[in-house]
């Protein structure tokens, strides 16, 4: 990995972390009603965004994201203010106009399909976008993400089955980010399987596992499997082990988990960059403080923007025929 790529990943990880921390604070004040997001997944989610091909239409990638994918959206080019607009329920929220929860993205220009809080149902929708891409040809793929808990739903298996229909193997990258919890229920309580990825075996699907807290491992694995799906036009199930540094969401307090209880991928990456002499601790602290300040300034700006109007609830129920 080249030096500039390493530093770009670092920059995006810091931005993502500071954006999420800003939104966590908002959820504890009148500035936001709720928070759930992805601190602890940046080492995986930033490379995912960097390697994807956003655009509009079947030539480009389609995304059915988790609400923990803010770092991916930032790596794809999202202005952090857009997510702050959603967190603050502004009319200017470009994803939902103040209608949806924080980190529920939707951007037609990038084929980012509307995120539904019921994450696993997106595994039913992804075969549809992937089928359109299979028919079209080219190198566009569909990417769908879920957590480990959701894989207990039948919809997990439906997705795998529809992606491997005879004659219709789909260009679909299934991603399970395994943080080993569904809110408060641990993976070990409710999953008999040692890992999730191997369930793909029953469908004749390629699969793999990666340490999603390790930037280089994640980047390299994503590069490999995205290239496979693009070129082979066949599905792949990738399981990434990740951390959950602020719990499930506001519902579990959104407080930083005890030191050393989970790997902090940003801290690990900083240590590597310092060891490689690409960064100093002081550089990191300066960057972190600057990004924190930038998010504070952005929030002040966003809060001045208009709130949705009562009449707007009736907008967009139907597209005009």
């Amino acid at each position, binding site marked *: 990995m080249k030096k500039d790529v390493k530093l770009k990943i670092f920059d995006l990880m810091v931005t993502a972390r500071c954006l999420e921390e800003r939104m966590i604070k908002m959820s504890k004040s009148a500035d936001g009603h709720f928070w759930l997001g992805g601190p602890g997944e940046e080492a995986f989610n930033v490379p995912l965004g960097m390697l994807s091909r956003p655009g509009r239409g079947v030539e480009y990638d389609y995304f059915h994201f988790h609400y923990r994918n803010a770092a991916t959206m930032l790596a794809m080019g999202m202005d952090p203010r857009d997510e702050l607009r959603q967190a603050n329920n502004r009319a200017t929220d470009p994803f939902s106009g103040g209608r949806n929860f924080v980190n529920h993205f939707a951007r037609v220009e990038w084929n980012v399909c509307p995120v539904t809080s019921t994450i696993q149902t997106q595994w039913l929708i992804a075969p549809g976008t992937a089928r359109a891409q299979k028919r079209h040809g080219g190198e566009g793929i569909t990417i769908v993400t879920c957590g480990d808990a959701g894989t207990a739903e039948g919809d997990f298996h439906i997705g795998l089955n529809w992606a491997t229909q005879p004659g219709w193997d789909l260009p679909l990258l299934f991603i399970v980010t395994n943080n080993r919890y569904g809110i408060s229920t641990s993976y070990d309580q409710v999953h008999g399987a040692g890992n999730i990825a191997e369930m793909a075996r029953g469908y004749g699907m390629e699969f793999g596992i990666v340490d999603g807290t390790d930037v280089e491992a994640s980047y390299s694995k994503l590069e490999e499997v995205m290239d496979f799906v693009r070129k082979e036009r066949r599905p792949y199930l990738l399981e990434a082990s990740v951390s959950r540094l602020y719990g499930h969401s506001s519902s579990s307090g959104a407080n930083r988990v005890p030191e050393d209880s989970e790997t902090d991928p940003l801290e690990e990456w900083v240590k590597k960059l310092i060891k490689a002499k690409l960064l100093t601790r002081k550089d990191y602290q300066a960057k972190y403080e600057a990004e924190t300040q930038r998010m504070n300034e952005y929030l002040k700006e966003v809060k001045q923007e208009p709130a949705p109007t009562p009449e707007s609830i009736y*907008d967009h129920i139907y597209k005009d025929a």
Partner: protein
Amino acid sequence: MATMAQAIRMALHYGEENLGVTDVFGEDVGPPLGGVFTASQGLKTAWNSPLDERGIIGTALGLALAGQRPVCEIQFGDYIFNTIDLLKIVGNTHWSCIGQFEVPLVCMTIVGAGIHGSIYHSHSFESVAAHIPGWKIVLPSTPIDAYGLMISAIKDPNPVMFLYPKALIRVKGEQRIPGEPDEKILKRMIDAPTGPTLAHIEQARVDWKPEWPSGLTDYQVPFSKANIVQEGTDITVVTYARHVFMARQAAAQLKESDGVSVEIVDLRTLYPWDRETVMNSIRKTGRVLVLNEDTPVCNFGEHILREIITECFYELHARPRLLAGADVPGVGLHEILELASIPQVQNIVDEIRGICAEEP
């Protein structure tokens, strides 16, 4: 005249040739069967899905989000209930993303009793469907309306729930669809050869291709436009699907026996429904019966009744009423059970007599 199954088939053919339909799919929708009710025989874009209603609705949504124009089928309305959460997602997608993505999909499913379908092949769905915002919902009673509503559904950029009545699927129309050839010729042209077993059917259809009528058009029945099936002066019956025909029989009987003049309004589109035609008819007659076969609690007809009471209360000469299916968990198989569960002609006659006997 064409049956409703043939009418739907012709509309889907017109849709895939001229209106950009990319996929007609569901359980047994593609070859060799072409739908358990034959509504998708011979279509070039028809394909068989796994036996998986959730996958069908989800994939239809994904196809629509990717700019395709899918028509999916849930084989029986009774089997759509395990997709309710997905129907909600389909209905809220355009709204939740403030209009960024369009969802031009049609979901067709056959509903209602009348074929001795027992507990799992007799259910209605319109009342539940009407409770899922973001969809348009149609339920035709004739082949020509089925054709015209399907063309409208395909052309619409929104999700459309195309319900169609089991009891009428083989009933021939009274009105010719534009471009429809004579009945025997049509049958020879577009009905696939059949056989006693699946193996025979497969064999018979190896080289079969439909010969589609060349004169089909984009004849549309516009959404939200009810049809006054027959004019009358004493009472309005607001209904749809099979009960349009039952209401006609009841009306004929009442005219003969009681001299009562019944106006029958076939809603055709259940949501958004044609309030103007309904209210104007009630203002004229002063009496109304809402009629359907769904179970009675939170019945779609109750919504219509509420709107009628709000808008026309002081113009009514008698209490408005709903005649619906029985409040039971299912439609039993024995004919006696089915007849007791679904409003029959005599029930309609009795209800109309009761309403007309009330003095203001």
